[in-house]
């Protein structure tokens, strides 16, 4: 995973926790997705401001129900890749 650039959320992303489940709507792809709690927190984090990869791991690792370090890193990498493909997240390299 590129550790230099910044990841950010696309402009028209709506997130919603609904009775313990996590939904995301992408205005770009017009898709509605049900996602894991950790992926939901990732998107909410990047909606607030852009973060670098290490900063994302740091922020998500502090959550009480976070995955362990190895699982978290692979989960975040896979999620970033998929969400960028879907137009939910953006990446700008340095």
């Amino acid at each position, binding site marked *: 995973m590129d550790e230099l650039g910044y990841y950010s959320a696309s402009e028209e992303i709506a997130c*919603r926790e609904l009775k313990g489940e996590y*939904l995301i*709507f992408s205005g770009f792809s*017009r898709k*509605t997705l049900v996602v894991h709690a950790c992926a939901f927190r990732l998107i909410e984090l990047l909606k607030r401001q852009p973060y670098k990869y290490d900063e994302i791991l740091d922020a998500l690792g502090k959550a009480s129900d976070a995955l362990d370090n190895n699982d978290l890193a692979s989960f975040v990498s896979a999620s970033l890749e998929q969400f960028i493909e879907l137009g939910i997240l953006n990446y700008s390299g340095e």
Partner: protein
Amino acid sequence: MPVNPETVFVGHQTTLVIEPFVVRLKSAIPAVQSSICHLYQGHVFLSEDASSFADFHISIDQVGGARRFFRPQVQFKFDGRMPFKPLPYSQAFPFFEWGLNWCIANQNFRHLLLHAAVVEKDGQAVILPGQPGAGKSTLCAALVGRGWRLLSDEMAMIDLTSTELIPIVRPVSLKNESISIIKAFVPDAVMGESFHDTSKGTVAHMKPPVESVRNAKLQTKGHWVVFPQFRLDSSISVETISSAEAVLDLAKNSFNYNVLGALGFEKLCDLVEACDCFRLEYSHLDEAIDFFASLAK
């Protein structure tokens, strides 16, 4: 009181209030005029002049030329445009109903629209989404016949501010076997003419109850979302589904969810958050009605 085509259609034109819309309809076809007067008897017909405001300007006319004599056809016009190919003359009234569905679904961006029937009891509404063949209109007609208030058999219209359900009280459209099933299940239902050999098979309409028409301005909160599925000779089964699953399925059943974007998503989530959601498989209407009665208790 009976409504007479000669008094309602002035110069072949009438203005019909189907809350929250005003529909101006022009048609010289006697079958259209008589079905409108019969099935919309409880609605308000405005006697104002033709220049007053209407949401939808619709005409149902016979196609001219040689077609008048050989397999006559009718055409549907909305604001002077023809969005559909002509249909046989005998299908003029169902053409109006289908065309009006299209007008509401395609011209209304002020509400979130779901392909669903909606009925209400004691201020609590059930939303019955479903693709054609799921049995939502049959179930809707049966529930209305057992005292539930009809809001719509075709479209759940959701207020984008309050998330309340807005009634669009119109005749309930029944197809094929459902027609005789509802005639037997609701013997006092007032039915319109049967139209045969349409693209949907035989179609007939059940007149909405006067009480539902009278309360057509009364919005209500959604309490349940029930995805019905009629399956011949099956025993009734009810499955609780998660809110997220309901949102995904309702989004697929929406006319304008994608057009509304994030606002549509938020409002759909608001609606579902306030509801318990189920899948219902049924074969016998009595069993299904008992299930809904148990919800309303």
